[in-house]
């Protein structure tokens, strides 16, 4: 477990050693606020909540998270540092988890830096802060889900651009699976049970229910299993392809 921490700290420091961290956080904050106020009409709605702010998180993450996760393994393989890491006395799992948690903590930092919008709604009215906290937890879980997909895509290739595109495409599929328009199309030719199964695979549905303030163990389990699944896939991919 100590090794996971050591690898995680190294990764996190690396984010901040390059402009990547600052650019990412800046773009995330600007877009998150822009979407909330401009398209979500956060202010004009006249309601003291952050729903319009969280609405856009899945779409923000769709592009921003793969941009963050694309380097996770592709860069290690490209530069050859994976050979160094894998010949140190660490297990493959410690490396996979250390790097994944670093990225997750980093998105957590970016998310936490949106706190002025929370202060704003509390200043303007009296929102239900329990719901807001739940939505933040939901958003963090959502980011973790996107990141696990991105980690796996990054392990597949040594090319970061390919890792980015794969990450966006797979995340997009997982996101869209919950949209009514997509589900309607499926239900026109598939039995309802399969349509429900597809819907239950979606990021969107589970995120929606948490961000409304309902923390259901099934939603938490969904994200835990999704993350676990993609991290196992990352480890298997690396085990097979690390030396290529």
């Amino acid at each position, binding site marked *: 477990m100590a*090794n996971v921490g*050591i*690898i995680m700290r*190294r990764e996190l420091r690396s984010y901040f050693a390059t402009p990547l961290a600052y650019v990412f956080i800046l773009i995330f904050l600007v877009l998150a606020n822009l979407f909330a106020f401009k398209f979500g009409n956060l202010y004009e709605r006249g309601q003291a909540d952050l729903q319009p702010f969280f609405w856009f998180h899945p779409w923000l993450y769709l592009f921003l998270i793969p941009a963050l996760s694309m380097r996770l393994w592709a860069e290690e393989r490209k530069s050859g540092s994976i*050979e160094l890491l894998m*010949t140190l*006395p660490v*297990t493959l799992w410690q490396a996979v988890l250390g790097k994944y948690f670093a990225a997750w903590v980093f998105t957590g930092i970016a998310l936490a830096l949106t706190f002025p919008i929370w202060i704003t709604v509390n200043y303007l009215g009296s929102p239900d802060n329990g719901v807001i906290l739940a939505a933040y937890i939901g958003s963090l879980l959502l980011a973790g889900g996107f990141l696990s997909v991105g980690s796996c895509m990054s392990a597949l290739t040594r090319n970061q651009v390919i890792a980015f595109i794969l990450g966006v495409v797979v995340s997009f599929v997982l996101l869209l699976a919950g949209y009514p328009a997509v589900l309607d199309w499926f239900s026109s030719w598939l039995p309802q049970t399969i349509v429900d199964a597809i819907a239950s695979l979606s990021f969107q549905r589970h995120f929606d229910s948490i961000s409304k303030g309902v923390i259901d163990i099934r939603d938490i389990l969904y994200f835990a299993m999704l993350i676990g699944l993609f991290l196992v896939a990352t480890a298997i991919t690396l085990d097979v392809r690390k*030396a290529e």
Partner: protein
Amino acid sequence: MIKTEHLSKRYETLTAVDDVSFEVQPGEVLGFLGPNGAGKTTTMRMLAGFITPTSGKASICGHDVETDTLAAKANLGYLPEGAPSYGEMTVRSFLEFIADLRQLRGEHRAKRLAYVIGRLQLERVLEQTIETLSKGFRRRVGLAQALIHDPPVLILDEPTDGLDPNQKHEVRTLINEMARDKIIVISTHILEEVEAVCSRAIIIARGRIVADDTPAALASQSRYHNAVSLRLEHSEQLAAARSAIAALPGVAEVEMSERDVRLTALPRAGASILTALNELATRQGLKLKELHLESGRLDEVFRTKTA
């Protein structure tokens, strides 16, 4: 001890390492020689636990690299080919990171860090990021990383690649110093390096071991073993001297180089020709600038074995 038994690595269309077995004991410095693509790096990667053998076994200090991986890795200091590292880190934070993963703690950690930094002369670049360093410095950072936990076994893939002659000398001195109580395996294609540091050399070609002996014994397989090389004062004596030497009974062949006015007489198998040549030179009144007995040329053995 390093031990490999019938170690092989096959890819779909290619056998990179083919049934390689050897043992290395403490105190030995093993030079791994071979043309590019012969399987040196693949063998080292299997020993380091980075790639899995298709068949066969390898162990480091009794720990199987596949089943007891962490213990094997803990006993090993490894410099991968090209000395990869994390370019955005400073030398100091990189070495601290390695020290942490190597479980070095407290005073011991500080001492080991100070030792490798001093030994590889990294003080000047400690706060620089690794990507801004020259090739030579990066290689030294890679070596520092491999030495930091004072491992009983060192596997170094081309440790002096990219270093200038002074740095090469420095690294060879370091290897010689550590050789007494460690097992060291280096790969190189610089043959003078083998003679300078290795107590044993394995030549590998197309994935197979084609020679395994001391550098001196390998060199003695050369046709230049016991050859006599002489340099003349006057180039006009060259042609006459050549025919006179060729006529000597023990001489198989004479090579002539007009550029540095040199003749090299190759002996027939087992013959000793130094005395005869010396006498001939006196008799013919040849003015010699230099006369010496060759012990054999490793590069020639290398070419013959790997052709």
